[in-house]
């Protein structure tokens, strides 16, 4: 069961989730015995976290794990480079639920939910669909379309100089969070599960990317944001269900 699908690497967005350049995608990857470590960089003009409206170059360290077929867990640490006294950075957690898959329902549908932890400024909740269309044995393309909520259910922060008046819907833009607010969409092209191209509209900009997977584990990606800024991403996959050689090998 584990090696049937051959540990196929799926394209990831800058957060290390299945996705295009910055937007996520709902494709159902058969492999789930892996953990993905991801590192990416966003220049100041295209920062995502914005840490309470403090713009800065941002580094993203993230981890993506899919313990169950229909759920993946995503941990993201944002480290704004120029913002002092922030500790380890912004710690974000979200879940992606793979609700429908193409094999059974004709389309892929996923939801991303960020639990209310009052900790992160990149919380986002969205729903999105896609359908993979095979052009040949080795080439396919996949249109993605989705919608992200413009508000988050959370508490106001102290720096907004409000009294603690409990949980409520607050516009994400108040925290400088413009990530996936509204309708987004894009197209991903997959060649041999090794080379990927993407074009997308992420609710703010139009972005392009291309990436290549080496040794089935290492993925290098170049992103071209808003047709002006070039940036990059590196991710590495570890397969967790492989036997250690030392455990099964023996000499008489």
């Amino acid at each position, binding site marked *: 069961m584990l090696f049937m699908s051959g540990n196929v690497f799926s394209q990831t967005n800058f957060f290390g989730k299945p996705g295009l350049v910055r937007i996520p995608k709902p494709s159902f990857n058969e492999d789930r*015995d892996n*953990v993905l470590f991801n590192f990416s960089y966003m220049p100041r003009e295209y920062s995502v976290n914005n840490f309470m409206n403090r713009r800065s170059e941002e580094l993203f360290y993230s981890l993506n*794990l899919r*313990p*169950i*077929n229909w759920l993946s*867990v995503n*941990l993201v640490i944002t480290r704004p480079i120029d913002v002092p*006294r*922030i*500790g*380890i*950075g912004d*710690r974000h*957690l979200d879940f992606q639920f793979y609700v429908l898959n193409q094999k059974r329902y004709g389309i892929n549908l996923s939801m991303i939910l960020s639990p209310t*932890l009052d*900790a992160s400024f990149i919380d986002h909740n969205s729903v999105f669909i896609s359908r993979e269309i095979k052009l040949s044995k080795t080439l396919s393309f996949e249109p993605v379309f989705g919608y992200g909520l413009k508000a988050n259910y959370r508490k106001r922060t102290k720096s907004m100089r409000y009294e603690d008046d409990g949980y409520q819907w607050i516009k994400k833009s108040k925290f400088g969070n413009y990530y996936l607010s509204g309708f987004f969409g894009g197209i991903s092209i997959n060649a041999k599960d090794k080379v990927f191209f993407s074009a997308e509209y992420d609710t703010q900009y139009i972005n392009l990317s291309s990436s290549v997977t080496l040794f089935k584990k290492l993925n290098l990606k170049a992103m071209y944001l808003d047709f002006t800024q070039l940036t990059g991403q590196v991710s590495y996959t570890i397969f*967790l*269900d*492989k*036997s*250690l050689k*030392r*455990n*099964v090998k*023996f*000499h*008489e």
Partner: protein
Amino acid sequence: MLNFMNKFLIIFILFFSHFAANAQDVDKLKSALQSAGFEQVIVLPVSLLDDGRLYLIGIEHRGINNPAEVLILANSISTSMGFLHTKFTLFYKGQVIHQSEFNNGTIVSSNLSDTYSRDFYQKFSPRNYRLNTFIDPEIQIRFGNFINPIQSKTSLFIGSDIVLARGFSLFTGIAIPIQNDLDSESNNVKLGSSYFDYFTQFLTNHYAQLSAGMFYDDRYGVDLEYRYFPNHANLSVGLRYAKTGFYYFPENAVFFESKFENLYLINFEYLFPKDRINVSLEFGQFLNKDTGLKLLFIKQYKNIEVGFFSTVTQTGRTAGFNFMVPLIPGKIIRTRNFEFRTNDSFRWEYSYSNEGEIGRDFNAKKSLRNTLRRFNSNLYNRY
């Protein structure tokens, strides 16, 4: 008539050559298993079948954290040496856990009968263990200090769990500090966690572990854990009681706080075998008289565990993750009586909140719950 005599002769010769080869083969099998890292290898010839003899083989392997892989390795060695009818009994510190056999490639497990347990126990000897020494980094990190966001303390534990009698062991070692900007503990080489530990399956499916000494996480005292862990069920239940105090090593000294604290916890754990996920609910009084509950999801991979937890107590609420991984390269030196290896199950936990200690326990590395979890035979054919 001649034909019959011939046949008889052949059978006669075959029978005796088979019998003569037996003792020698068993010795060969034992040494093959031992050189693959097995300890406490006990082979019991049982009954003569049509096409060979059935052997009950007792084994323990401390370098592999997955019992299913221990069984697969043992089976591949014994079949390659011509032992076609075997049943394997897994030991933990020489105590029987359960018996497993291979049936067309799948592992079937059952409880071992008392008679055979007694046969194994008669042949048990602490001398069947190596001095099994392992190296284990201890890494404590506190995130979130604004100026120094990653404060850490790293040391290297080198030690062993020395089995003194069946189920009874002395866990001890030294800790070599490497780096510390977290607390004021001295930078000298010091005694690592050291305690006596007794493990038993006192009734079928009922396990207990009693430990006394200086534990991981700076606690000393006694720790008693009971667990009902049925061989074929997915639900298991545990109780834990501990009376401990705080200890640490200032410069050239050891300090034991005289104030003792109680910890009592009840734990329910349910395994979803298809997804290999354990859902665990723990509640009671944690350290620092902190009452509350902890919900934990654990995904079990072949040699790795990944857990996500959420804790709610009087002190506050937190969430985080933990994991268990085998360290590379594994075996470093292995001789007849000695083994030096890296830890087969390095554990680490990250908690979101570091304000106060929420739902804290201790010595989780060696807890009965974490030890037994991997022995659930419903998992063996699911990896």
